[in-house]
């Protein structure tokens, strides 16, 4: 199984450890993983700002980099969802073979055991695009049976204690350019999310999307909080 590793631009630039954890985890689980070095960005920052018509360059580059793989896996629900919904790939089947890391582990690799340990109280932030877009977990608005793919994986990690939240799937307020265009509301949403986790005793906040965590980290650090953020790939690959 040849997996093309899709590392979103801001993870490449700011959070290389998340890319490394993703790569190591997939290799541990027996995948042949290749990182196409010419990749940049999925085009979402432009598209969500109303400039989808400018994203042809990113679009074509993505196809060129990834069309030959059996699967494409990326540690970001948001970027994966963007490719799935908006890529113009007339010839290929990229939307069908691209997976966010968590769903790739639960649905394709069908992981039932992990050699990982992370002895901390962890709060799981349900990033909206992963949850409501890729359906990584049941949504509280729907009257339907509960399930959670990220939780399913976190339950396999030794020593990890998952905390409850008052609002299980409220948005953190990052929202791409929203975070600067609507700074006041974005920050308030982030502060409220952080408060919910802290109130329930989280030592670490995790998510399947680094962009939400980058926003929450910015707020935590400004508050000089001891609470840390960790991408779910780092926890699933952890030997703490």
């Amino acid at each position, binding site marked *: 199984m040849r997996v093309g590793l899709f590392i979103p631009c*801001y993870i490449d*630039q700011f959070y290389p450890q998340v890319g490394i954890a993703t*790569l190591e985890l997939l290799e541990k689980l027996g995948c042949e993983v290749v*990182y196409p070095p010419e990749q940049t960005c999925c085009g979402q*920052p432009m598209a969500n700002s109303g400039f989808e018509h400018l994203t042809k360059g*990113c679009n074509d580059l993505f196809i060129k980099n990834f069309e030959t793989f059996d699967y494409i896996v990326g540690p970001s629900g948001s970027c994966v969802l963007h490719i799935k919904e908006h890529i113009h790939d007339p010839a290929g089947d990229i939307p069908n073979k691209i997976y966010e890391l968590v769903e790739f582990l639960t649905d394709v690799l069908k992981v039932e055991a992990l050699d990982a340990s992370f002895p901390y109280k962890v709060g799981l932030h349900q990033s909206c695009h992963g949850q409501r877009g890729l359906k990584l977990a049941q949504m509280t608005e*729907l009257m339907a049976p509960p399930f959670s793919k990220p939780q399913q994986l976190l339950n396999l990690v030794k020593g990890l204690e998952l905390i409850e939240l008052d609002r299980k799937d409220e948005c953190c307020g990052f929202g791409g*350019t929203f975070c*600067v265009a609507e700074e*006041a509301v974005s920050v308030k949403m982030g502060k409220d999310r952080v408060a919910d986790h802290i109130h329930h005793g989280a030592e670490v906040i995790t998510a399947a999307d680094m962009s939400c965590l980058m926003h929450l980290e910015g707020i935590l650090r400004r508050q000089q909080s001891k609470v840390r953020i960790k991408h779910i790939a780092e926890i699933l690959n952890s030997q703490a």
Partner: protein
Amino acid sequence: MSSSHQKDHAALAAEFNKDEPRVDWHDQTLWWVRQKRDKAAARVPEWELLRDTASQIKENVLSNLSGYLRQFEEEATRNGITVHWAADAKEHNEIVFSILSRHKVDKMVKSKSMLTEECHLNEFLHEKGIEVVDTDLGERVVQLAGEPPSHIVLPCIHKKKEEIGEIFHEHLGTPAGNADPQFLTHAARLHLREKFLTRRIALTGVNFGVAETGEFVVCTNEGNADMGAHLADVHIACMGIEKLIPQRRHLGVFLRLLTRSATGQPITTYSSHFRRPRPGQEMHIVLVDNGRSIHLGRKDFRSSLKCIRCAACFNTCPVYRRSGGHSYHTAVAGPIGSILSPNLDRKKYADLPFASTLCGSCSNVCPVKIDIHEQLYKWRQVIVQEGYAAAGKTAAMKTMNWVLSNPGVYHTAGKAGRWFMSNVPFTVKNGLNTWYRQRDMPEPPKESFSEWYKKNKK
């Protein structure tokens, strides 16, 4: 609030956020309504089937609208109701005014009607010397305060009871400092009763028009629509043309969804059917287009006309809860307002589709399954393509696109986050770095992932 129309959602939301405890209060109040909705919906085992059914019935209505409208007009006329057609807000207001003039009436009671807010009927009639008294308690509160409603179901949800006490003290003469809800409600009741008894014309909104029978249904919790209509000689009902349902039995779907979605009640206290005028009474229906038929022609956006105005999308929206209804500077605020308003005025409401994180919660609570967050995304594309984006933003997006389309440029520019730090949208420097004001920046690592990979894997 006309002065606030100059500011966009972000600026108005920033003002609202200057009082953080108030934002917390507003957020928690509406979240409580969302939770009531969840509990009410969970008690209906076929909830998701009901949503599907409602969505499909409305799909049928939108696809056959002209036929249903003619049927409705024919049946209503047969029932003795006078049917008027208004192409836009101006015609709507003039029709209402002409009925008032013909009866030489300069005072009127009006129950909840977001359509008349959309058409700015109160302001229009005020200029003509007509006094309109809103009889919904929440609407009366904001009317006395000189403000528009901030929420389509809970018009004065932004007011604390102490503030309502002050408004009533000033306008209705209640004792200063009395903010007891029961006392204030009683005072409003006495005040409104006098209006009901003395007004000869009553205007109501319409929740559902039934094509098959020519009747219309008005849902209220206070009975104020009924009180107005039954005591007046003339009943004027104003409805948007999309408010139709084909048959009376379809109310079995919509009435079960409407109030559970809105407030978590199983049904409104009053769901009143008006079919024909009582002897001696005059009954009018004003059917209003005001941009709806244009909207119907937009493939990507037409399904927003399915809206039954329950406001579930307001209550669940994390942005609405923390920015307040007035920040949307339009009659119908919240996520649904952000996809309806650009149809009315693209320039004035160009900001609204951007007042969202695209989290998608709105689409999930919508009882008629409008893909609200997807339409927000699509409106953004339309607004930019029609030239309503700021020039600076366009230039920044073009630069970003150029860098991100060229791997060589990206990797050179991107070394250890240098280019990113100053150019990606969340850190973009524009004099005042809006990311950094209340958040720390990510710390740039020693090497990027791609640099690490080149060293360690290749």
